[in-house]
């Protein structure tokens, strides 16, 4: 049995405990807050647990595992997750990257067309268990676009969604299968995953007011 209030897991699967971080109530005077909810150690521990959970879930239904990161933050995390998966299974699964800019549903609402980066999937998607990796799960629109793009490359046997942070606030009926940390963050605040691969001085997950540096 999982924790109270969490979805029940099928019998026979190991219980993985997702970190839940209770953020302090917003400052009553409305002053902006900036909270570090995960440091480098926390991120690495979460990824190691996520990798074990991914392998465990993939074993349930079979199918060769492959990891696909959603650009940009998801790609760095996918590379790390892939290494942790290899530590569990002894082999690195194939890795790809997705850029969802051409699959967004809001091009007409933007002043400037979003920057389109490379999508690079060099293995056959059909029949694989794809672990789709992103840094933050919020509205669910990025994941919807990523699923659309992924299925244009083939018909995966199964897609698992792994995110480092689930911040709530979904606008589409999308849920992650594997989560590093679960937060309840109001819309006026943003979650920023800073990674050294992306140019940050140190790995950390911050919650801060929208638009603050």
């Amino acid at each position, binding site marked *: 049995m999982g924790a109270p209030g969490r979805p029940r897991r099928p019998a026979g699967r190991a219980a993985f405990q997702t970190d839940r971080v209770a953020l302090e109530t917003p400052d009553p005077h409305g002053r902006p807050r900036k909270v570090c909810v995960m440091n480098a150690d926390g991120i690495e521990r979460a990824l190691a647990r996520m990798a074990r959970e991914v392998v465990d879930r993939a074993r349930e239904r079979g199918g060769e595992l492959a990891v696909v990161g959603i650009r940009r933050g998801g790609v760095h995390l996918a590379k790390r997750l892939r290494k942790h998966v290899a530590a569990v299974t002894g082999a690195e699964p194939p890795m790809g990257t997705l850029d969802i800019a051409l699959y967004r549903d809001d091009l007409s*609402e933007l002043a400037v*067309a979003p920057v389109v980066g*490379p999508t690079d999937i060099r293995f056959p998607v059909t029949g694989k268990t794809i672990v789709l990796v992103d*840094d*933050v*799960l919020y509205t669910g*629109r*990025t994941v919807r676009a990523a699923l659309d793009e992924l299925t244009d490359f083939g018909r995966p046997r199964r897609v698992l969604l792994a995110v480092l942070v689930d911040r709530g606030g979904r606008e589409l009926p999308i849920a992650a299968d594997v989560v590093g940390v679960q937060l309840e963050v109001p819309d006026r605040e*943003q979650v920023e995953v800073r990674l050294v691969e992306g140019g940050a001085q140190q790995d950390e997950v911050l919650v801060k007011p929208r638009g603050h540096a």
Partner: protein
Amino acid sequence: MIGKHRHLTGLEPLTREEILSVLELATSMKEVLRRPLKKVPTLRGKAVVNLFFEASTRTRTSFETAAKILSADAINWTSSSSSVTKGETLVDTALNIEAMHPDILVIRHPAGGAPELVAQHVSCAVVSAGDGAHEHPTQGLLDLYTLSEHFCAAGGAPAGAAPDFGVLAGKTIAIVGDVSHSRVARSDLHGLTKLGAKVRVCGPPTMIPQGIEAMGAEVHHQLRPAVEGADAVVMLRIQHERIGDPLIPGTREYSKFWGLNERKAAEWLTPSCAILHPGPINRGVELAPEVADGARSVILDQVENGVAVRMAVLYLLAGGAHEAAEGGARA
């Protein structure tokens, strides 16, 4: 928008950075073009009208393919079967088409400046697909892309790697043929000089416009000094349909002095020199068939890159209907 531009009527108004932004986007578009399922939903619900007042197969098909891969609806309009034959003006035609709410008008016209004129009267985006002897901006862009790709590959870059467009700086490109009547030559000249390449133009004196040196070109009237040591050669088509008075005594003489055959290519060109041609080729006139189909030819790469570049242009001009900041709301 391409930088601050709502329309693309030439490469002359674009800055180096604006040109680079289109070329870099074209790299991502080329990846889409090479997918087994070549279709992305980004321009779904947008309409692109190809208004062609001149015959064209390659450019029109290229724009149509680009629009369809991006899921836009492509509508082809040709003047021969239209009210232009009944005396309708260019602006009236454009206003009538615009009343059908297209998002982008792609215009080819025999008169230089026609897309610019239309752009002043319509609210949708306008792209020139070649206007008179003025410019052919997407051909210029695809030539820049193809040249960069060739130079990167020649420099040892792995196959399929994204080209580095800085590679054009310092390279020497020879443009040979009827430069006076060539909109391709003008767009190439603007694009290449902005990206730091040196340009030589070559042809009979009757085909080289006066004052072209002011655009940064080195003028030659003999083929050998123009192509010797060049990193690439752009061979232009003799445009019989555009030339009123004959500018050359005959195609045989032109071929002898300014055409490129296998012997000249072997003796005068460097081993890595690429040969480009905007097409369609007058085989045996500007290019011998063995050269057009030879190992140095990147002519079919130009055609493939043309679709990728046009996808990039359509994406940039169709994106963004009204002002709205792109926040971090998506995830």
